[in-house]
């Protein structure tokens, strides 16, 4: 059973634009999900999130289970009602947070054991428990508990984690109490090993899940390995199901992954970088903390139509950032607006049949000197998008690997 509809509205080679109908909202893909760890996106109200076109937000099961607790959220009628968010929600399994936040987490066949941050007692998160908690939270999409290992780790541990993830998916499916209203996504593991990834994808596809995520990436692996795993998985996953690349949030990565056929992304980057005073702009990143900003009377991004860019100058925001709450409020607002606009542009350009032009323009603005990284060029070749017009005629090897135009 599944509680979503995924209709592809347009394609360009592997890239696709779709309408993803979830219980609480009809989304357009490709889409970016801001991370609302504790039942709120830092510094924005729900109205503001709707104003900037946010369709779905991510809640962290581990944090929500600690505070306010799954029981309380259940008593309040679920997370949608508790935070009064009318659009879609996704929750992660909680496993990744434990492994990344708690030094004492240990994974056994039964589940993830960890020391309670509240009272220090040993606790156990099993696949069954993760799903039970996520059923109580009530998000439109819930994630299977997987055995997460760092992509930079090698050896038998990767294989063990992949097979365990497959064994756990059956326990997750069996534990899922609300398949009619919540969609359980499986997570492809297997590190950077194509054989392991392949076994995992086939194993998950056999389970006929409503959607699939590509996990274990964005953890410090080199970019060439990153895109190759994404490309391999998207090629092997079913055409009629959404594909979610977990933890990916740099605009360039999102463009590349979308060209390779991925649909969904999440990352804390836009809001985290905002709190440190950086703004996302078509050219890359604008550091509002920089002294030259103190007399710059332009908006953050003159091409942006968000509330912040319509009303405030770089000079004013410069005097707020890292000092006043308002600084991170305004920058988070702009950065998420930027991500929403990027998602929409990806969707529209695919639907309107001008996706290659969009990618070319995106790269031209990000890399005005034509120094497009080589991994991007390699990925675009696989995606069937000609970006030679964005690349400089001569590669400069001293600054890393760039593509050559042909």
């Amino acid at each position, binding site marked *: 059973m599944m509680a979503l509809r995924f209709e592809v509205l347009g394609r360009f080679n592997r890239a696709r634009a779709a309408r993803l109908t979830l219980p609480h909202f009809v989304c357009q893909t490709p889409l970016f999900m801001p991370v609302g760890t504790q039942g709120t996106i830092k510094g924005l109200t729900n109205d503001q999130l709707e104003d900037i076109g946010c369709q779905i937000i991510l809640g962290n099961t581990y944090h929500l289970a600690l505070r306010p607790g799954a029981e309380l959220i259940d008593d309040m009628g679920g997370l949608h009602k508790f935070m*009064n968010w009318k659009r879609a929600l996704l929750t992660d399994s909680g496993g990744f947070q434990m492994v990344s936040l708690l030094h004492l987490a240990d994974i056994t066949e039964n589940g993830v054991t960890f020391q309670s941050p509240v009272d220090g007692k040993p606790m156990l998160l099993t696949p069954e428990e993760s799903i039970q908690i996520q059923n109580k939270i009530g998000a439109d999409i819930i994630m299977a508990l997987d055995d997460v290992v760092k992509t930079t780790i090698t050896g038998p541990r990767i294989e063990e984690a992949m097979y365990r993830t497959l064994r756990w998916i059956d326990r997750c499916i069996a534990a899922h109490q609300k398949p009619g209203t919540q969609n359980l996504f499986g997570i492809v593991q297997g590190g950077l090993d194509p054989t392991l990834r392949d076994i995992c994808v086939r194993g998950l596809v056999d389970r006929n899940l409503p959607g699939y995520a590509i996990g274990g990436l964005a953890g410090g692996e080199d970019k060439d390995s990153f895109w190759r795993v994404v490309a391999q998985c998207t090629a092997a996953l079913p055409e009629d199901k959404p594909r979610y690349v977990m933890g990916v949030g740099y605009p360039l990565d999102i463009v590349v992954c979308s060209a390779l056929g991925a649909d969904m992304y999440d990352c804390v980057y836009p809001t985290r970088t905002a709190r440190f005073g950086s703004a996302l702009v078509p050219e890359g990143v604008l550091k509002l903390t920089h002294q030259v900003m*103190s007399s710059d009377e332009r908006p953050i991004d003159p091409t942006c139509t968000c509330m912040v860019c319509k009303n405030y100058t770089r000079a004013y925001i410069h005097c707020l950032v890292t000092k006043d709450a308002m600084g991170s409020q305004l920058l988070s607002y702009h950065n998420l607006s930027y991500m929403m606009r990027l998602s929409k542009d990806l969707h529209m350009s695919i639907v309107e049949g001008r996706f290659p032009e969009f990618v070319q323009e995106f790269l031209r603005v990000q890399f005005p000197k034509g120094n497009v990284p080589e991994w991007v060029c390699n990925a675009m070749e696989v995606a069937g998008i000609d970006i030679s017009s964005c690349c400089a005629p001569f590669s400069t090897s001293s600054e890393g690997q760039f593509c050559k135009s042909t």
Partner: protein
Amino acid sequence: MRFAVSSSSKACSGNGRARAGVLYPGSGGASASIETPSLLISTRKGLPTFMSRDLMASLPLPHSRLLHVSPLNFVECPSMKTISSIGGLHQMLGLQDFFFVASARDSVQSLPESGATNKLGASFETPSGRRLVKPSDYMEMICSLKPNLWASLADEVPAWVSEKRNKASVDRTIRWLDDCLSLDEAGGTSILGSIVGGSNIEERKRCAIEAAMRNVSGFWIGGFGQGESMEERPALLNIVTDSLPKEKLRYVSGLALPEEVLQGVAAGIDLFDSTYIYHLTLGGFALIFPLDILENNSANQQHSDIGSDCTKINLRATIYRKDTSPIVDNCTCFTCKNHTRAYINHLLNVHEMLAQILLEIHNTRHYMGFFQSIREAIKCGKFDTFRQNFIDGRRAHITSAAVCL
């Protein structure tokens, strides 16, 4: 800007010195007329601490267009040259249709430091250190920021300074008023003459009379909330307002709590700034006191909110963990229309900034409602009853503190 008193003690014997008035902002800035007594919403660098312009939209108009600004918030940046070039405060903040009233201190980040003030200028503690501001510096700020109304530079001193120091503060404040007037390119059309004098009745009177002799649009009364007692305050306020022309605007700083605002209104003050909302919000408090104070027989008030002093509740308290009601039933603010006490309790527990955003919206809305009730009471000539009811309500609470704690 134009100001007119619409009802005063002459017309309504139940109002004492309290008066209702109308502020006509005129061209530039807010256009709708604004009734007084009214609250100037506190800002940090020109914006309410946690509300950008879109978040202010659920606050009632036109009164939410009245903002207080401290020019000293901009001593570090942007430079006055940049602010001027952007076009002043309204342009820089995206608040073209708002009405800004400036005075040097904001009671949170820019505090008068009388010990370091000298004959050249007033000293302030700011986040970027201690700053000595001369009248010429101050006028450069005013000139660049272009607030709709602004108070002349004052030498504010705490209640405990010597007679001699207090007298010097009056002399300097009057001299600096003359300096500001002579440096003001607008010729006094938007200047409020500052009045100080500490806890000394004679000095307060002398300062008020001197200020009233100048060509000013109204008056700013400073030096309150600086260590004087609640009891001595009415006499100090009354001697000042009695010495001022009736037809001109009066704005006081430093009277923040509801009881203090009522003291000010009772003395005939028209505008208030208040850090009360800011402090409530940071503390996790939400205002809940009933606003239909005239109708309310305080003795019968229901003290149902445990964990409260019956004017406010602390949403950090565990009793709100599962409370699905809004902060105040029927409140029209964004917070109450969309969120429960339980959700705000959670946001406070996990230190999420949205808690402060939601609390500031509600507390601002509620305090504006309090001022609305004050205006209505004055209009029907019942301010004295209103004030008495409010104070009795508080007293009734204190005696039943065992229930209400």
